[in-house]
């Protein structure tokens, strides 16, 4: 599903990633952990082709995204869902409209949009908040709307970059459990986080990064154990 081969990324002579290689198989859930500046977000940006590696190869669903032409990038992104730390919800749109917005933009049929959006809101348990605007939602609910928007196109890969960075521990646990539920439905999930407590409780694959290098990659690891 995902494969990084000897990936190095340099920003203005600063090495963000140094010869990183790993593979995540279809249906797996993995946590990228490490302190700030370790290179977690850089890997995420390489996956959704926001950045290109300085050297090495990045494969997503057998496609080398580092060589993907710009015109093909939207198609790649439609096959994956992205969850952001700051939710990136549009304040002037309701939960329903936020989730539906990208579907309108790709020209999907209105009835199909309705069906999909209700399905996605059901997965994140927010059908009762479909008509609420982001300002009237709690932080956890906003992130759940963000997750609903990420899964509404039925992606095979979900990328979450610090999804609990702005949330309290209880809400963070809810979000992690939600991501696990989405993974159990067959979606590959990769989460970049520095939330030690949550990662320890999940007992899933943990890839630990420090200074742009992988220092450990354990199938059922804990954050604490890696440091």
């Amino acid at each position, binding site marked *: 599903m995902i494969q990084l081969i000897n990936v190095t990324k340099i920003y203005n002579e600063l090495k963000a990633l140094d010869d990183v290689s790993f593979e995540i198989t279809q249906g797996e859930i993995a946590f990228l952990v490490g302190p700030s500046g370790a290179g977690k977000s850089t890997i995420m940006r390489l996956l959704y082709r926001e950045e290109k590696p300085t050297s090495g190869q990045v494969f997503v669903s057998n496609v080398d995204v580092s060589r993907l032409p710009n015109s093909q990038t*939207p198609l790649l992104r439609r096959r994956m869902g992205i969850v952001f730390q700051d939710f990136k919800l549009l304040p002037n749109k309701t939960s329903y409209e936020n989730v539906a917005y990208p579907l309108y933009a790709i020209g999907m049929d209105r009835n199909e949009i309705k069906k999909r959006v209700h399905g996605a809101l059901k997965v994140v348990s927010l059908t009762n908040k479909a008509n609420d605007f982001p300002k009237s939602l709690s932080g956890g609910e906003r992130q759940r709307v963000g997750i609903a928007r990420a899964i509404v196109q039925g992606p095979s890969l979900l990328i979450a970059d610090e999804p609990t960075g702005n949330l309290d521990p209880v809400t963070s646990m809810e979000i992690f459990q939600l991501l696990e539920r989405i993974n159990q439905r067959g979606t590959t999930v990769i989460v970049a986080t520095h939330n030690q407590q949550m990662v320890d409780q999940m007992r899933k694959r943990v890839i630990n990064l420090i200074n742009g290098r992988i220092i450990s990659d354990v199938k059922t690891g804990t954050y604490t154990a890696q440091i």
Partner: protein
Amino acid sequence: MAYRMIYETAQDIWRGGWSNCVVISILTSVLLIFGFVLQVSFGLNVISQKLTDQMEFSIYLSGDVDIKNFALKIGKMPYVNRIEVIDKDIAWHEFKKNFTIDEDFQNPLPDTIHVRVSRSDYLKSTITAVRKMQGVIDINYAPGVLGFINKFRNFLQLIGAGIAILLAFVTVVITANTIHLVIHSRQNEIEVLRLMGVDDWYIRGPLILQGIFYAVLASTIAIVPLFTLHTFFWETAQNSIGSVLPTGLPQYSASNILRIYYILLVAGIIVSGSGCIWSTRKYLKI
């Protein structure tokens, strides 16, 4: 999909607020100046054409030339439409009827032939050919008025083009800034769209459509004073100097206003479209 694009465009225009009015006002001014120059140029072109069409030239011959034979030669020339032969003796006789002239006074008038060509394009070539013929003292035609009209038209086009280009550049800059404001206000939305895999054209499309909207509105506003001025000018001209104006001008005026509108529309789209493209290329990262 088209509905969504138009909806997004309408929202962008709404977000633009007063900056839309600034862009439309300046674009209207540019198109108004451009349209005025076009209108006057077209008018002068037609007047010049009509004058040329109606103009004849006159050939003055020396005394040793047989005017009848000469007239036959001229009549056989290509593009000569009509000739009128004026014998110097007949002309002198007519002249003496109106003026008291001493009987001993010798006839100073030359034999004259008035010639009319079938198309104005052939006028100069016919005159050149006739001038080379033996016995021609002089040829007279009226290039003065035409020369003045053409010079005035060229001057007007030069000044008008200069002002229009300057204002067009200002419009491009202001349109680009307005679109930049829209991009800035939609930054979050654009980022969401592109990360969700929305096509590039769907994001850029509404911004380009916004430019086209400016052009349509500005050219429609600009054509109103131009049309009013146009009607006023021709009506005044017909009422005051209609007798000296070449025939066929009113028909021209009605048909050409629509042509000017189309030209303004295209010019407006080019100017504001350039602003939109410049801004989206510079500020929109997709």
